[in-house]
């Protein structure tokens, strides 16, 4: 119940074990990774030194995989499995070292198994990715400021669109379940760590290896296909496409590992007394989200492996000339793609359902309804993928059934609204930063949801498909709802993750800039789409000039707001007000541990006797 002085942390510094593990870190990983990639590259050149695209693609793809494997070897990811192979395991000292005991900042650059370290690594990684993706968004909007601006040429523009898309999708998939799912979730359920700490570290460092690969796309001709990377366009694309493929394959493995880990942790490691109906709703949301990713992403991975085969050894999975089919790709992609948007959305909404009771001082309205709503979305989301293919001509007679399943999602989605509204109804909202997110979500998700119903309807989609309307719609759901939830979560858990409060003034300024700019940006884009502007165009006609100018102005507001948020986070992290143990008076378990949190979170295993939503005066 007190603020802890950071300097008085007395975790004794153990003698580090004399083993290879202590010598390895991010730096050695990079060195070994680059050496592997170079060796692979020059070996490939000597083997297949021909001026064929297939050979070039093969060499690049293998070099990128070599980098990933080299990096993981260099950082020591395989020391444990290697010991198992020779019938041993890591010693206790080595395990403590891996958990980062008494290592200070350097543990963030190692293969560290402590879930709190992994959470911070994910947080910083996500912020870097959002920054990169956001910068690209600003460049896209700058190019669209007036018709014929030609600020960048069409080639660079297309690359920007593709890289912005995939960077943001990857960032948003992990934006909540990465930082909060790793840092907060185990403490929330009263666990000492994740079920598989080494896999946890592996999932982060795998993802880390994918980031330079994705960035390298710039130097090999970009990703000129949009993030959907439809075949046969992707088969035609230059070397940057290899980077996309490798990134997705690595990311699919990483998210499968993370998903298995979080799911197992929640199923097996909950505190004593934490029955399923006492689990905090964020934990349910995060678990559902990563559990959905487990069946969804392999389909994406398969689609990219087949694309890789087409590009590197000359198969014809997607080439109609030799019996392949672009529709095959579209199906594999969207079988991942539609559950995936809910993988992004659900944790964001769940964070806000966690926040709303705390700041309205009122119990979460109808916990069961919340769970049913989340589960209903999961169930339906696997049955709707072909609504992305209404106009593909694939099988028009199936448009009807897919329209039915898609529109049915509005029912469980409506339940989530009911839960949030029921929670804040007749409460006095405490207008702290996290609570603002709840209101922002209600508006943004409402717009995103209703426009989604238009798009799910075939006659309307005949007109709107592939237009800016679609872009605006999914930004309302993914950014307006999911990212808003994640930022609210950051403001909410910042005290627990950094020991300091997030600066309120800059936080408010950022919130309003981002949210107002966001409305201007995407309401303008709805207009452009309704007028008939296709998406992903580098240039457009005079008729759309006003809508696009409005959008660009909104985009700059969002950009400024995000820079303010970045300042707020960096400033607060370094010099912010020291946070009390439970600044919000919340009842979940993570607020019962002081900062800095012990290596294994709890000195005594907590026992749970009720759900964490016992707010409100007792009636009668």
């Amino acid at each position, binding site marked *: 119940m007190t603020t802890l002085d950071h300097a008085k942390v007395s975790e004794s510094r153990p003698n580090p074990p004399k083993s290879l593990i202590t010598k390895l870190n991010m730096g050695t990983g990079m060195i070994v990774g680059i050496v592997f990639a170079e060796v692979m590259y020059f070996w490939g050149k000597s083997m297949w030194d021909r001026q064929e695209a297939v050979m070039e693609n093969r060499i690049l793809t293998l070099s990128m995989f070599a980098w990933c494997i080299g990096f993981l070897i260099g950082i020591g990811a395989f020391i444990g499995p290697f010991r198992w192979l020779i019938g041993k395991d890591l010693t206790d000292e080595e395990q403590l070292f891996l958990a980062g005991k008494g290592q200070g900042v350097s543990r963030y650059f190692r293969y560290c198994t402590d879930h709190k370290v992994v959470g911070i690594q994910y947080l910083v990684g996500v912020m870097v990715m959002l920054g990169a993706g956001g910068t690209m968004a600003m460049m896209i909007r700058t190019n669209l400021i007036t018709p014929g601006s030609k600020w960048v040429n069409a080639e660079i523009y297309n690359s920007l669109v593709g890289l912005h898309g995939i960077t943001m999708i990857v960032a948003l998939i992990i934006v909540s379940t990465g930082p909060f799912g790793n840092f907060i979730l185990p403490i929330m359920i009263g666990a000492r760590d994740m079920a598989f700490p080494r896999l946890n570290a592996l999932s982060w460092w795998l993802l880390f290896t994918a980031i330079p690969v994705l960035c390298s796309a710039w130097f090999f001709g970009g990703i000129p296909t949009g993030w959907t990377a439809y075949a046969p366009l992707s088969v035609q694309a230059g070397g940057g496409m290899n980077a996309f493929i490798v990134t997705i394959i690595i990311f699919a493995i990483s998210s499968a590992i993370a998903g298995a880990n979080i799911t197992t942790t929640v199923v097996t490691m909950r505190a004593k007394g934490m029955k399923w109906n006492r689990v905090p709703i964020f934990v349910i949301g995060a678990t559902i989200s990563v559990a959905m990713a487990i069946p969804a992403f392999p389909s994406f991975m398969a689609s990219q492996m087949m694309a890789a085969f087409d590009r590197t050894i000359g198969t014809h999975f997607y080439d109609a000339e030799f019996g392949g089919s672009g529709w095959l790709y579209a199906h594999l992609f969207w079988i991942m793609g539609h559950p995936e948007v809910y993988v992004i959305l659900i944790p964001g909404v769940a964070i806000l359902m966690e926040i709303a009771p705390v700041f309205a001082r009122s119990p979460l309205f109808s916990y069961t309804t919340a769970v049913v709503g989340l589960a209903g979305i999961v169930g339906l989301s696997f049955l709707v993928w072909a609504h992305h293919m209404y106009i593909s001509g694939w099988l028009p007679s199936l448009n009807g059934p897919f329209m039915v399943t898609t529109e049915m999602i509005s029912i469980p989605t409506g339940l989530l609204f009911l839960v949030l509204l*029921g929670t804040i109804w007749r409460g006095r909202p405490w207008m702290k930063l996290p609570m603002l997110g709840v209101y922002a979500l209600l508006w943004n998700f*409402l717009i995103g949801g209703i426009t989604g119903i238009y798009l799910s309807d075939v006659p309307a989609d005949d007109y709107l498909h592939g237009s800016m309307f679609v872009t605006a719609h999914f930004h309302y759901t993914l950014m307006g709802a999911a990212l808003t939830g994640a930022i609210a979560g950051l403001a909410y858990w910042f005290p627990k993750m950094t020991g300091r409060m997030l600066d309120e003034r800059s936080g408010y300024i950022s919130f309003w800039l981002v949210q107002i700019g966001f409305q201007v940006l995407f309401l303008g884009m709805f207009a452009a789409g309704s007028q008939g502007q296709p998406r992903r165009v580098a240039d457009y006609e005079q008729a759309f000039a006003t809508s696009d100018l409005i959008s660009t102005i909104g985009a700059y507001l969002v950009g400024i707001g995000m820079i303010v948020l970045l300042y707020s986070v960096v400033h607060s992290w370094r010099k912010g007000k020291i946070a009390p143990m439970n600044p919000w008076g919340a009842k979940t378990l993570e607020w019962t541990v002081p900062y800095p949190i012990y290596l294994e979170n709890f000195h005594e295993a907590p026992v749970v006797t009720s759900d964490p939503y016992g707010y409100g005066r007792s009636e009668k």
Partner: protein
Amino acid sequence: MSDQHEVVDLPPTPGERLRNAMKARDVRITMIFGVVITAFFVFIGLWFYPKFMPEIMSESMKRGKDVIVYFTVISAPIAGLVIAIALYTLFDRHHGDTPPEEAASFRTHTPIVFVWTLVSAIFCIVAIVWGLTEMNVNSEDATANAKTALVVEVTGSQWVWTFNYPELGVQSEQLNLPVDRPVEFRVHSVDVNHSFWPVQLGVKVDANDRVTTLAHTTPNVLGTIDIKCAELCGLYHAYMETQGKVMKEADFNSWVTAQGGHVA
């Protein structure tokens, strides 16, 4: 039922409870908000939104627009309710560094959950039935017009649309159509995927390599059509556009003759 008067303290019936709830001040104010916001969204849907749609030159385009307009109107009460509740709670805000006083312990309310689910299910069914009906009308029109339709073969290639009228022996990079005559677009691509989008006609279909996909419509207004590509197709995707004209039958026939074709 006869011994009902023996009971002294009847619990309030659901009807009475509803009437009592409606008398509460916050419920009344919220409902007023809800009505105003609903009206606002109805206004957006009926009047404001259609201004952003291009000229409507076919029944299929009109159906698409109607779906958007009426779905906005149908969902207006939902939006009204959600925003009204959120707005109302904002009237009694709490600031400062300590939490506000505890609210009422309002854990769940089965009738509300039930009614909410039921109402959203009804809205959902309305939307589904509406959509299926409109879709069905579109495809019935297509079947009915199959014999009389003017066939236009549309070829997408990076980054040009070409139009071939097989029955008339004309090939052109401009799409000209006679007014009030059903048309069947047979669309394919010779390279990557494109998406054929004659904007004012309200239809759209992908162009795939080695597959022919169909789109049916009947232009019923004279004027210019913007033809665009709605699927990212490489470097000059943004410039893969051309214009078309819906013209009187006589004008169309003389255009066909001028192009060296023969009028059927």
